[in-house]
């Protein structure tokens, strides 16, 4: 039978290539202007799930909330060995903070059925908040083990894992259901399987609510097999008020590009005399002993 696992994965802007223009006037992110990648630690969460599946058997469902092209990260999940993929997409989810995001993901997880283990990345590199995982766990009223850097033991009854903390680590154990947040040091994510890429490359999405306007993704839907389910607010029985901007208590008040605040600066020539003077000065000011 094995464990029923859910992995949450997010498509994120590649924060290495961000400029001030990446933000819109209203303070939300202009995702369209940015290259996107698979959130790195979500790959570690997926890898851990696939390893557990290899060890104990089981089923891996990947869920992502995002715009239509977030289907790309879900395809990546299928290429690596996930069994199912679900995209939560609806304009009413837009502008969600972590509270609204975790609410939508919680509804989707409940919609997906029974589960034993939920794996999230520790944090997403767009916000670095590390909040969504624990908030999903709270909303499902289940236990959580955060910052997991290794799964040491697992069977159908319980999981034992290594949790990295500031001054070392803890070995913690929990029964199911439980939610894990996984760090980059947990494993080395496998690459896509060439055969699976061929199988899934051209798949489309199976849309569960026809009332939702899907015309803008027509190109994707010329499907061979439908393996990525797409759910909207109704499909996951979510309360629209708790989704998106209206479900988000945090508001962005102001965005500033980072400017260098200059300080009084002295140029020291790269010469023995000037460097010796500088060192002597620092000694006499008791900055160095």
């Amino acid at each position, binding site marked *: 039978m094995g464990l029923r696992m859910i992995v949450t994965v997010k498509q994120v*802007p590649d*924060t*290495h290539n*961000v*400029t*001030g223009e990446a*933000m819109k006037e209203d303070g939300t*992110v202009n995702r369209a202007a940015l290259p996107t990648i698979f959130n790195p630690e979500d790959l570690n969460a997926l890898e851990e799930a696939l390893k557990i599946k290899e060890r104990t058997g089981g089923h891996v469902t990947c869920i992502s909330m995002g715009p239509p092209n977030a289907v790309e990260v879900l395809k990546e999940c299928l290429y690596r060995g996930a069994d199912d993929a679900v995209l939560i997409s609806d304009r009413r989810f837009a502008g969600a903070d*972590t*509270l609204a995001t*975790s609410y939508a993901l919680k509804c989707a997880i409940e919609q997906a059925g029974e589960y034993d283990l939920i794996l999230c990345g520790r944090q997403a590199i*767009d*916000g*670095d*908040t590390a*909040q*969504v*995982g*624990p908030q999903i766990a*709270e909303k499902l009223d289940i*236990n959580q*083990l*955060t910052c997991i850097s290794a799964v040491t033991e697992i069977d159908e009854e319980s999981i*034992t894992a290594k949790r990295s*903390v500031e*001054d*070392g*680590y*803890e*070995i*913690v*154990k*929990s029964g199911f259901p*439980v939610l894990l947040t996984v760090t980059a040091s947990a494993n080395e994510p496998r690459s896509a399987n060439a055969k699976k890429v061929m199988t899934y490359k051209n798949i489309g999405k199976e849309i569960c609510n026809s009332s939702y306007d899907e015309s803008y993704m027509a190109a994707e839907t010329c499907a061979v097999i439908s393996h990525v389910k797409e759910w909207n607010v109704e499909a996951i029985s979510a309360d629209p008020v708790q989704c998106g901007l209206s479900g988000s*208590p*945090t*508001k*962005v*008040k*102001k*965005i*500033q*590009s*980072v400017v*260098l*605040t200059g*300080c*009084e*600066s*002295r140029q*020291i020539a*790269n010469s023995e005399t000037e*460097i*010796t003077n*500088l*060192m002597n000065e*620092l*000694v006499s000011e008791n*900055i*160095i002993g």
Partner: protein
Amino acid sequence: MSNKKNVMVFIESRAGKIAEVSLELLGAARDLAGKLGVQVEAVAIGHDLKNELTVLGHYGCQRVYYINDERLAFFSSVPYAKTVVNTIKAHNPGIVLFGATTMGRDVAPRVASALKCGLTADCTDLKIGEHQIKDKTYKNTLLQIRPAFGGNIIATIVSPESVPSMATVREGVMKMITPNPDAAVEIINEACTIADNDFLTEVLEVINEEKAVNLKAAQIIVSAGMGASDPEAIELARTLAAALCGELGCSRPVVDSGILDKDHQVGQTGITVRPNLYIACGISGQIQHRAGMSEAKRIIAINKDPNAPIFAIAHYGIVGDVKDVLTKMINAYKKA
């Protein structure tokens, strides 16, 4: 007791010892409470902490709600989060602050989710101000300031419509106040009402690993960037650090390329430092690096590129090759 909405700090303790970040947060809370004309409170969860708690008074805390239970001796998500939620519901603080530690980042989101209130992670500054939504003005709102998008922008976040406003703050970001040994804290014992079946995590082992370096405590840091990453340059940086009784730091790519251990990394995703002297060797000075060191009292930058951004925040700029400059510094110091 005042019925004003106070500022509350989550006191973190591990093995019976109060975390430094909690004391730092009390200082920040004192500033915020001063502006709001309210008090600084704290919630402390654990077992046998009573003797430790007096120190909270020295750092500006007026009252601490103390939940003492043997079952709370080790950290466990569900009981800790539920206890904080109960304390918040009972005492209605306007602001709650957590350290952005593994414990704070585990508990705070659960608490925010349970109370359906806003939570801003990893704030680098906290202020009081006002915010307008439609035609309603919210006065005395917590302005939560943090870098976003890999530090490329600075965002000010507010959550005035939900109470309390909650934030996590990283260790080292807020300055600890000078302790006043005469200031007392009122300790209020509260019962732990968590049921046994909420204790869902079993802590089998706690292993302490000594850090190879302690950057946070260092008064002098010599830091190597990609411009000082070959073995010879690293060795020179290490020699200078040793001569000055300082520590060796570095930028992230130096860690990513496996040259130095993560414990050496300064910056947004590394350690925030505030030494007396920071010597940046071959570091370009990207925002993510500066986020961790710009508060150093003195900064010396060594870079061969006169336009490197690091020079904008350096007190002393030396344009030149790192190895050459470091050698001169080591020689000069030996003579000095």
